[in-house]
């Protein structure tokens, strides 16, 4: 059920990213001031945008989880946040490289996006320890969803506050993406699409893997006669689990 369309999605992602790479290196003109290093912009900014959208999406999925109590929403929220955290780290790293190249320091407080990301990263880095610290799986999902909603609302507020407080010593680049020349705009949009597809593909992979593992466990339990002794205890985990009843696995079609 989850695995359907995964191959198509993966191929599309690779294709778009290849095109994006081509555009970045061969099509987009060199920027006057910063030279070749500026091309990191095509990776850094899409990563940032996708990570932010991922965090907010995680919050929205968490709202659905609390409303419907369906553990699948918790799983989706978990994967979205998990993946966004990785993309956020990538944002910080690429931002840092860019800062070092452009302004000579590995870290600059004058770039509000970067600073906001640091704070957002510090917040979401507690998501998994929080989950791990709660043993009851149902409560774990519930508390994680509350956190995801809180943190999701925090992201825009944080950006606002940091943006207000930063002195602009350097030209803002995120804001200036609207008055880029046409070639740069196109490259940027394709890169954005590529990174977004990458995010979706990776999320889908993780969801499929987890779902498959849950099905496997359900089948094992069924083979062992549905007795408590037969199933291996799962142990503590930060990841949400899907307690699939054995009948659920029977209704799933074989995926490619």
């Amino acid at each position, binding site marked *: 059920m989850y695995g359907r369309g995964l191959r198509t999605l993966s191929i599309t992602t690779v294709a778009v990213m290849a095109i994006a790479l081509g555009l970045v290196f061969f099509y987009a003109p060199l920027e006057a001031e910063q030279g070749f290093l500026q091309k990191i912009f095509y990776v850094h900014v899409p990563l940032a945008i996708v990570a932010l959208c991922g965090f907010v999406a995680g919050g929205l999925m968490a709202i659905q989880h609390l409303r419907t109590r369906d553990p699948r929403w918790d799983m989706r929220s978990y994967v979205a946040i998990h993946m966004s955290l990785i993309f956020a780290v990538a944002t910080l790293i690429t931002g840092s490289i860019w800062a070092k190249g452009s302004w000579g320091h590995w870290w600059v407080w004058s770039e509000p996006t970067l600073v906001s990301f640091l704070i957002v990263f510090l917040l979401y880095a*507690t998501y998994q320890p*929080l989950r791990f*610290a*709660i043993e009851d799986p149902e409560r774990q999902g519930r508390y994680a969803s*509350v956190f995801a*909603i*809180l943190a999701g*609302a925090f992201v825009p507020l944080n950006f*606002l506050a940091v943006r207000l407080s930063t002195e602009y010593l350097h030209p803002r680049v995120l804001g200036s993406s609207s008055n880029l020349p046409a070639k740069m705009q196109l490259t940027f949009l394709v890169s954005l699409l590529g990174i977004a597809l990458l995010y979706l593909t990776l999320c889908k992979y993780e969801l499929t893997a987890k779902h498959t593992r849950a099905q496997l466990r359900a089948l094992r339990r069924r083979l062992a006669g549905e007795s408590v002794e037969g199933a291996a205890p799962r142990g503590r985990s930060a990841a949400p689990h899907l307690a699939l009843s054995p009948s659920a696995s029977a209704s799933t079609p074989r995926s490619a």
Partner: protein
Amino acid sequence: MRRTVAALLRKELLVELRTLESVPGMSLFAVTTFVVFHFALNQNSVSGDEAAGILWVTLLFAAMLGVNRLFVADQDQGGFDAFLLAPVDRSAMLLAKALALLAYLIVLELVAVPAFGLLLLGPSLSQALPDLLVVLLLADLGIAVIGTLVAALAVRTRARDLLGALLALPLLVPVVIGGARATSPLLGLTHAASPPIRWLLTLGLYDLVFGLIAYAVFDFLLED
């Protein structure tokens, strides 16, 4: 609802008065921290940005002590169950706990701010006072709401003290930004300017947004 909040708040303050677990510790911590800052910075008096920073960092960390202890008595002595069995609106607990935390913060500041004026602050405190109270109140509301939510989240986990601070500090960064930026002109060396309105608005917006969210999600933290 009002009756329930009153009953809970009364119980809360009664337990605190009996045990004195939160407020004395928070206040003492703040004063000690000022002393530590004196030695760490090797300065006899501070003003402006520096003063605002020291004040807010100290208040924030002292607040964490109160946040950590907020639900411990209920968790350990079964108070949650008793409340959940009663035919009352569950949001009353959010309101009561946030009000209690707000009360603790106000008492903390009654001790810490004069201590700060005495020990570290260069310019006179009296010129800043009315505006400072407004800023403190706005920030306290935000700390109270976030503190209550985070405390409720953390208390039933295994590393409750650690997790509480780890969750709360990033969430409270906008409060620190707003509070420190608004306070800094008040503690200026030459004269006290009034705080830029945008910081008061930021704090107000923060309080509003998180107040509403807290009201919406709190029930989910209580049930099983």
